[in-house]
């Protein structure tokens, strides 16, 4: 599965972007287009997940997976924080900010992983999109508690950070689309499938080309990254991802969904969490948390991580 996964157009376009940036080409996707595609991906993931859940109905598995996701997102920042403080030698604020990123999830890693699993005959259940939505925000709360100083800043919003956290555009769009998918069901979505279903993989290619460019340029700019933080940005996904797969298997999820839980646990946020952290913990260095999650963990998951979680889930299931 690993080699097959690496040779898929989505991954090859990511590598093309990364190589172009490393060679200092001026290739660039306009911001507005990249942002538009990122919104499209969330709408599409939400709608399709909601449509599948509408079809399958609420199940026991769904509740288990949702609970597991919730627990993982709340708790994964704790060991991460400890490792970042000790091995990573980060101060409290930076360690807390980074830990929040690793407790949360990457929508694009999930999307790519789902496609690769589907290709390998291990399609995750539709409700995993709900789990994805559930896992986006709890880690932010844990991270802010770990930092202690959050929101004590003169620029911090009066009403605390909860508003920023739950009304983050990407969180709203994913949840809202999931709800619309639930309401309209697979049948009701047929008329919009030519936009939200059929072209999904192709759109992902264009987006991953851009991700390759951005990740590699961040890596070349790696002002804030040290050898220790880079190594942790490789170790944390493996740790968290394995935990996710093991937990999913223990809860008797099908192998595809267990692998997807691993992908979620092993991925790190680079959209919703940074936007909240920039405001809540301005003293934390965005070069550090975006460098780790976007420039190291994301490429690792895309090329090796997903294949590994899938392999592990298949192994444990048999």
């Amino acid at each position, binding site marked *: 599965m690993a080699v097959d996964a690496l040779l898929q157009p989505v991954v090859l376009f990511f590598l093309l972007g990364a190589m172009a940036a490393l060679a200092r080409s001026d290739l660039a996707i306009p*911001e507005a287009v990249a942002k538009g595609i990122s919104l499209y991906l969330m709408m599409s993931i939400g709608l399709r997940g909601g449509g599948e859940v509408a079809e399958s109905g609420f199940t026991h598995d769904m509740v288990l997976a949702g609970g597991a996701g919730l627990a993982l997102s709340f708790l994964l920042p704790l060991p991460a924080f400890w490792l970042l403080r000790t091995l990573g030698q980060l101060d409290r604020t930076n360690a807390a900010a980074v830990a929040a990123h690793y407790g949360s999830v990457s929508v694009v890693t999930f999307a790519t992983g789902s496609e690769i699993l589907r290709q390998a005959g291990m399609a995750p259940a539709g409700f995993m999109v709900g789990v994805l939505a559930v896992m986006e925000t709890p880690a932010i709360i844990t991270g802010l508690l770990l930092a202690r100083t959050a929101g004590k800043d003169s*620029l911090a919003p009066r009403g605390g950070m909860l508003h920023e956290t739950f009304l983050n555009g990407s969180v709203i769009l994913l949840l809202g689309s999931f709800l619309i998918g639930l309401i309209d069901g697979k049948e009701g979505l047929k008329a919009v499938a030519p936009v939200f279903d059929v072209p999904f993989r192709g759109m992902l290619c264009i987006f991953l080309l851009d*991700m390759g460019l951005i990740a590699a340029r961040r890596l070349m700019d790696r002002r804030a990254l040290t050898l220790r933080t880079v190594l942790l940005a490789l170790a944390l996904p493996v740790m968290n991802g394995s935990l996710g797969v093991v937990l999913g298997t223990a809860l008797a999820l099908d192998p595809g969904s267990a692998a997807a839980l691993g992908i979620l646990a092993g991925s790190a946020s680079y959209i919703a969490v*940074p*936007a909240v952290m920039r*405001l809540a913990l301005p003293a934390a260095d965005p070069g550090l948390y975006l460098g780790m999650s976007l420039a190291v963990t994301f490429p690792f998951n895309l090329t090796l991580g997903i294949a590994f979680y899938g392999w592990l889930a298949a192994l444990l299931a048999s």
Partner: protein
Amino acid sequence: MTETIHRRRIEVLADEPLIPAIVALAAEAGIVHYTLLPTAGGAGAHGRWRDDQLSGATAKVMLLAITSQDHAAAFIDRLAPLLESHHLLLMSSDVEVVRGRKFD
């Protein structure tokens, strides 16, 4: 010849997620009219950046406000302690406007 009046031109460069908070701070200093300008990239003590909207967390926006000497000073006083910790750029210069009352 149309009479013009001296005012202060304040410019603040900040990460996009901080803008609403900075607008609120300006309002406390008596500055409620402003214009936001987009940016494309740059480099500072904290490294280079390009305007990638992927996360939006580090895309920068320039806030421009024309205001009176007093309001400008009040705003700068409030913002000064945050400049370093929030990676802000703050500039102030002279500017002449018509309709002086509008810019107090």
